[in-house]
């Protein structure tokens, strides 16, 4: 098993680097707070707006400085990472599952149902996410639940469209016909024959969408309609930092870097996965 994994990773720079980055980020946000035991919410108004340790006025116990309320940036970054990454992962999973199911149905059964579903998907995609989130937040109140619903609602169409496309292209192939000829029922056909051909692309798409959702969460929290303070998230840390650009550059810089590294990792991962999973890409050597 280990040998297989190493075999897959060999020569695949994207996969290796993407996985490494994501593992580092995940361990930091999951285990970091347990090791450091510092509180992201404890304010220390005497020590507000302290720069990072290497700049003048910085102290070594507040390695990346403090924010406007004296809260430690390092622990805020780690706790914020938990929120941002967790939301991204959960949202992409639910959007992916919903989209996969709908896409399989639409592609396999076709007809009017396919048309209706595709038009609904298009309406969904045409609805500006920001507006959707604003409205949901106005109705359900701000916070994680609204964000989760907004992401799932806006995320499923692309999974559905791609799934449907693949299903359409293999629906008339001979192995499906053969399976039906020996009496395979629809559900069994979908699960045992169609789904395995769809999954590789869905996995790749999931990695890509994950980075998209993390970025989107950051954007929504940035304008104040996502995760609400005092709960830290990389997005709302950026939003808070924006007001202090001229005197406290570290507030806005570090969350952005964290975001960038995480998204980079996810993108590299999806590229690497594409080399492994996409049969067309396998022909090409990196």
């Amino acid at each position: 098993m280990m040998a297989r994994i190493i075999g897959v990773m060999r020569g695949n720079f994207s996969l290796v680097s993407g996985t490494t980055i994501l593992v580092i980020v995940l361990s930091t946000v999951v285990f970091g707070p347990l090791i450091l035991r510092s509180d992201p919410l404890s304010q220390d108004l005497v020590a507000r707006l302290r720069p990072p340790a290497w700049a003048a006025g910085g102290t070594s116990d507040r390695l990346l400085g403090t924010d406007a309320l004296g809260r430690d940036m390092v622990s805020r970054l780690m706790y914020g990472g938990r929120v941002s990454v967790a939301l991204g992962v959960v949202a992409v999973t639910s959007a992916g599952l919903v989209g996969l199911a709908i896409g399989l149905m639409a592609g396999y059964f076709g007809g009017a149902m396919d048309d209706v579903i595709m038009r609904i998907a298009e309406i969904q995609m045409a609805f500006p996410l920001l507006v959707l989130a604003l409205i949901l937040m106005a109705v359900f109140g701000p916070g994680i639940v609204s964000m989760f619903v907004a992401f799932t609602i806006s995320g499923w169409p692309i999974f559905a469209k791609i799934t449907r496309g693949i299903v359409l292209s293999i629906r008339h192939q001979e192995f499906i016909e053969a399976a039906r000829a020996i009496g395979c029922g629809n559900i069994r056909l979908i699960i045992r024959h169609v789904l395995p051909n769809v999954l590789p692309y869905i996995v790749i798409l999931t990695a890509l969408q994950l980075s998209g959702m993390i970025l989107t969460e950051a954007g929504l929290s940035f304008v104040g309609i996502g995760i609400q303070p005092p709960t830290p998230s990389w997005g709302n840390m950026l939003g808070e930092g924006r007001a202090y650009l001229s005197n406290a550059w570290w507030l806005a810089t570090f969350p952005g870097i964290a975001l960038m590294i995480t998204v980079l990792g996810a993108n590299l991962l999806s590229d690497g996965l594409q080399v492994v999973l996409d049969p067309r890409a396998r022909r090409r050597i990196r």
Partner: protein
Amino acid sequence: MSLYLVRRLMQLFVALLGMSIIVFVAMRVAPGDPAERMVSPLATDQELQQMREALGLNKPIYEQYATFLRGVLHGNLGKSLFYNESVLTIVLERLPATLQLALISMTVVVAVGIPLGIYSATHGGSWLDIIARMMAYIGQAMPSFWLAIVLILVFSVGLGIFPTFGRRSLSCFVLPSISLILPRLARVMRFVRSAVLEVMHEDYVRTARAKGLLERSVLYRHTVRNALIPVVTDTWLQFAWLLGGSMIVEVVFAWPGIGALTINAIYSRDYPLAEGCVMLLALIFLLANLLMDLSYAAIDPRVRYR
């Protein structure tokens, strides 16, 4: 083909109708209404009610919707509750700002991204390719609003070269454009590169080369033209998205465009303005989708619509 067009247009109309109902209902269900924001915090309940009546918010929802619909059919999108002007006027006023940013950004992205992508595909492993690909990876990973902040930090606060906000002068265009351009440039470049690489190994390219055609001929007439089909799709969609107003960048730079207008309208519960803006954004996106599907059929002879 024209039957397809008619069907798509009908679907577009239905989609817009559906969306208008959703927005309409959602805004009125949300807590807080414009009346609350227009009267002083010390106002009595009676004054609040009077304000609501004056704004026409007391009528049942379906009546409000019917009024709205009737207005739309006459080309009247209603009057903004806060600006006291016709919604259409306000929107049209702010449209050029967004349009300018969108056009500038997309032009640069296409003009630089496509050649770079082609070069990267054909000269794989060269210095320019490696640098371009690294920057593309990083560029795609950057949130555009964070890029905006960093640009402001470096160029406005630090060096004082470009203004921080507004749309007063030509130099005001630079930072917002760069924020919008960089991530998209990265995306297009990678897209073009992978599309060209994909096509380069197809049999018909090998045939063209075997025929003895000049490499350049092979490249442009066969490879690139076919590779660009998915790129065109994605670019169109990006442009449509930009037209909808890159809301967050507009907010960061206080750019007087449609995106910022929409956000403010929803925040202040300015019902007519918010509905008008959202409908406009949806219309733009759906139309762009339709145009894109049509151009698909025009470019790729293998695509046929019933």
